[in-house]
């Protein structure tokens, strides 16, 4: 090692390393920086002792004296939440949806919870206020495809419509034109008849006959829908797949069917009851 040597110009000590006559100055790290380094080292040692850290072979690792685990922590927290809500949850479990709606306390609770559940899960299809969208029914009116009582709504939400669940609500409108159940001429007549149900255009007797023979079974003799068969009301001017003659014709040649997922399994039963009561309250519950 070269002895301590000072740079003539700056007076700083050099490291003794020399390249082409240029000498490297020895400028040590600032003290505070070095202290911080040591603090982090001590921090690490404390961390190793308290928290899970070192692998110790044989597929295991040190668990730390605190025994911390983020997943166990979550399980504990969820359990605590469940405990704190236990009274409520039990009351919901023991009550039918009618009883929930009839009990001011439970109703209040269900409305608050239901609003949040609705926003996270249902709003993307049914709109943030249940106002619906083309092909997604309005939940805030009293026009129900599958029924607007609390029990009906509960069933729809639990098992869905044309969903993958075994209990799901199911019904399919035949493809009248492609399967040649009716002729194009009859299709025109029955469409006129359907239009006349909402006061547009004139009905012909022929159209009415086709309707009674082919459509009434699902849409009702008066065209006001049959909840058991999921045939929507055609007489109230509320349309899933668009208004007007062309839309009705389109449904005869290429029937569209809405799919609503089943929520049992994804949402727990108490949540489903809450959102049922919330949907029922949106404006059109029966």
């Amino acid at each position: 090692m070269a002895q301590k040597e000072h740079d003539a110009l700056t007076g700083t000590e050099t490291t003794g390393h020399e390249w082409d006559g240029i000498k490297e100055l020895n400028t040590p790290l600032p003290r505070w920086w070095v202290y911080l380094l040591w603090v982090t080292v001590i921090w690490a040692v404390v961390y190793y002792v308290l928290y899970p850290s070192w692998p110790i072979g044989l597929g295991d690792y040190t668990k730390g004296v605190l025994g911390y685990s983020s997943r166990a922590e979550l399980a504990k927290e969820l359990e605590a939440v469940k405990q704190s809500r236990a009274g409520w949850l039990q009351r919901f479990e023991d009550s039918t949806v009618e009883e929930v709606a009839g009990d001011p306390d439970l109703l209040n609770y269900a409305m608050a919870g239901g609003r949040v559940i609705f926003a996270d899960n249902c709003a993307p299809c049914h709109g943030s206020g249940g106002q619906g969208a083309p092909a997604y029914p309005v939940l805030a009116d009293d026009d129900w495809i599958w029924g607007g009582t609390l029990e009906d709504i509960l069933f729809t939400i639990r098992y869905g419509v044309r969903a993958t669940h075994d209990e799901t609500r199911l019904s399919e409108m035949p493809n009248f034109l492609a399967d040649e159940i009716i002729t194009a001429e009859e299709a025109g007549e029955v469409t006129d008849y359907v239009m006349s149900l909402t006061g547009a255009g004139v009905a012909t007797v022929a159209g009415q006959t086709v309707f009674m023979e082919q459509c009434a079974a699902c849409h009702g003799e008066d065209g006001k829908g049959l909840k058991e068969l999921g045939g929507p009301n055609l007489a109230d001017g509320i349309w899933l797949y668009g208004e007007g003659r062309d839309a009705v014709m389109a449904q005869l040649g290429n029937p569209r069917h809405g799919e609503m997922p089943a929520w049992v399994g994804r949402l727990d039963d108490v949540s489903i009851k809450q959102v049922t009561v919330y949907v029922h309250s949106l404006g059109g519950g029966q």
Partner: protein
Amino acid sequence: MSHEKFETNVIILIIGILITISIGGLVQLVPLYTMEQTIEEVDGMRPYSPLELAGRNIYVREGCYTCHSQQVRPFRDEAERYGHYSLAAESMYDHPFQWGSKRTGPDLARVGGKYSNDWHVAHMIDPRSVVPESIMPGYPFLAEKDLGFDDAADHLGTLRVVGVPYTDDQIANAAADLAAQANGEEGDTDALLARYPKAVVGDFDGDPARVTELDAMIAYLQMLGTLVDFTTFKPEMAQR
């Protein structure tokens, strides 16, 4: 003066740097390979079907991860909103993983089955047609572009090189499986489902005549978070 040797010889310096950095990397990585708890044992996890994989590739290509995470963290608010926290096992076949680091939109780790195919079609083509307040961009071109899948087997083969356990059978039938899953009833879906249990079969984009990129994307989205059988999952065996 060994110091000087390093400072005056580039090759020695590079080797020295490599050794030093490797130690850091090895200390962090190697133990994970030896620990049994790194990836929990679960039932139901399987490599992606060729159609799901094609969708995943489009997901990566379009940068969906810049706005969507795929990782439900073990926190109460996330568990209550999205469902069970994500497991390491659920991304064991991801190369690269899609955990993401930004949530402009919601987490997608459990989106499978949450919506209908119809909804996904409308939403991908124009998000505002179903969610008026959405700020997600539309991807209408996915519905127009045919999915090129001559190379389906190559994708599986490549992943096998990096450790995804695709069988010879799966690789040989990749293109057929892809078509079967996207065509719904037509193809041989029994063989598909034997190779890829729980695969969602159907004409995803509403256009049965063609297999489009949208078909692949929706098949991928409908699978997300649905594979692991949580009824047999033992949380106490996977605590960390």
